[in-house]
């Protein structure tokens, strides 16, 4: 293992721990606004994971869409509600044992499936520098007919419908 790979491993473990730890804090903290802030840390950890995978486009899209748009809406909503949002009730309900079992089973199943894949545990082949323009490839893949043009257009029509719906609901007919 080269020094670069070791550093990548360390970074991976730090960002994975950050993502999972702050995800736990999102549900464990009793203050609503702190939950929202921990969620941002968790989303940021995911962005770091994308960066480790050399997916630069996904990194910035993750930050723009999730941290810059969705989480800011959460914070906006929290700020507009009442001042003291401490949650005083119990944090677990009766079915937590069942939920934990289902979670563990899913994790175990996924681990088993991935470990039976031939590429499991192999180091990722480095992307040859300067030979592929990944952003351009992604762009052409999204609009070429034999690749992802249909899902792309369906998603955009869905968003347009949501936009029109929001305007219709909010529009005040005088």
């Amino acid at each position, binding site marked *: 293992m*080269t*020094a*670069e790979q070791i*550093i990548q491993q360390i970074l991976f473990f730090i960002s994975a721990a950050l993502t999972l730890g702050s995800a736990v804090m999102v549900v464990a903290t009793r203050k609503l*606004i702190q939950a929202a*802030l921990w969620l*941002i840390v968790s989303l940021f950890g995911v962005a770091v994971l994308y960066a480790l995978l050399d997916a*630069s*486009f996904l*990194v*910035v*899209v993750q*930050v*723009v869409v999730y*941290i*810059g*748009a969705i989480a*800011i809406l959460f*914070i*906006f909503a929290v*700020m*507009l509600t009442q*001042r003291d949002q401490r949650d005083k009730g119990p944090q677990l309900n009766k079915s937590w044992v069942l939920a934990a079992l289902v979670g563990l089973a899913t994790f175990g199943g996924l681990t088993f499936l991935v470990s039976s894949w031939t590429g499991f545990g192999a180091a990722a082949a480095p992307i040859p520098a300067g030979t592929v*323009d*990944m*952003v351009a490839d992604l762009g052409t893949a999204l609009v070429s007919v034999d690749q992802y043009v249909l899902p792309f257009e369906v998603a955009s029509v869905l968003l347009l419908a949501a936009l029109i719906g929001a305007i219709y609901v909010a529009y005040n007919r005088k």
Partner: protein
Amino acid sequence: MIDLALVLEWVIKSLVVIFMLLGGFAYLTWFERRILARMQTRVGPNRAGWQGLLQPVADAVKLVFKEELIPARADKVIFVLAPILTVVPATVLAVVIPFGTQVILFGRQVNLAVADINVGILFLMAVASVAVYGIVLAGWSSNNKFALMGGMRSTAQMISYELALGLSFVLVALMADSLQLSEIVEAQRTMWFVVLQPVGAIVFLIVTLAEVNRAPFDMPEAEQELAAGFHSEYSGMKFALFFMAEYQKMIVISIIAVTLFFGGYLGPFIGRFPWLGPVYVLGKVVALLFGMVWIRATLPRIRYDRLMDLGWKVLLPLVLGLVLITATGILLADEFGNSLVWSIPVVSILAGFLTVGLVDRSLRRKFNALR
């Protein structure tokens, strides 16, 4: 293998950018106060040092020794975190910007950019969207209704204008055929994008004024209505950090405008003397900053509902139209010869005039209805 010299190069370049922004911030306050004073037939700070050049130092010392107050019922962690969250994005924005081509320094080829990543424009969008947090959280954690209102206003304003900002980035990306900032600058070798995208450049400059909360869009800190807005409760160095973030953002956003529309580091003899690159950037940035100060001295603050109307009903449709015009123009130029690229500025100027005419008509109608 990780090259130690390369790491050292990164560290030094990052430090240079950080200190450049710090010094820029200090002297931008002096520049602004002197220019504003000239425009209002005053003198401005001229006591500390020659022409008042030591005034920023005196201000810094004063702010360091001021008492720091944390309101009793404030959310302390977030209250302390907010100024930091405001400054960091303002600094991080500068890392993707190329200040020149390559120079030979101590026998090494050195790129005059800290990290010239392939999604540079999108990185700018991402960091700009993170910059909202500091202001929102400052307003919320102060436990003060004026601060909260200032925070809310600025969030709404920045989110609204981010749309038009992103779309004006799209204009440049379409013209340059790349998201990488160095390639965008290189695409302007023959002609600056401001010539091909005059309306796009104007929209970009208006939107950036709103993004950095500068006059005439400084509603979040309207003294008369909000008692300084989101930073009402901040004092001492914490207040200085907000102040610093605002001026650093002014500088960085001017550098971005220069890079995207005004040819970046390009200028005469740049091929022979690569060291001229940072000098050209500095000259163009100072010109833009002078424009910002000039606007502050000239225009009154715009009313809040008008501000939102301008963002959503005027600038967003206009810049969407510009994207369509630019895409069509590029397609036409590809199909029927390069001279058709001039259809972009012609049609976009027509679209700009149409927009101004429509706004004028709507304002006239409102005015006549009042009479």
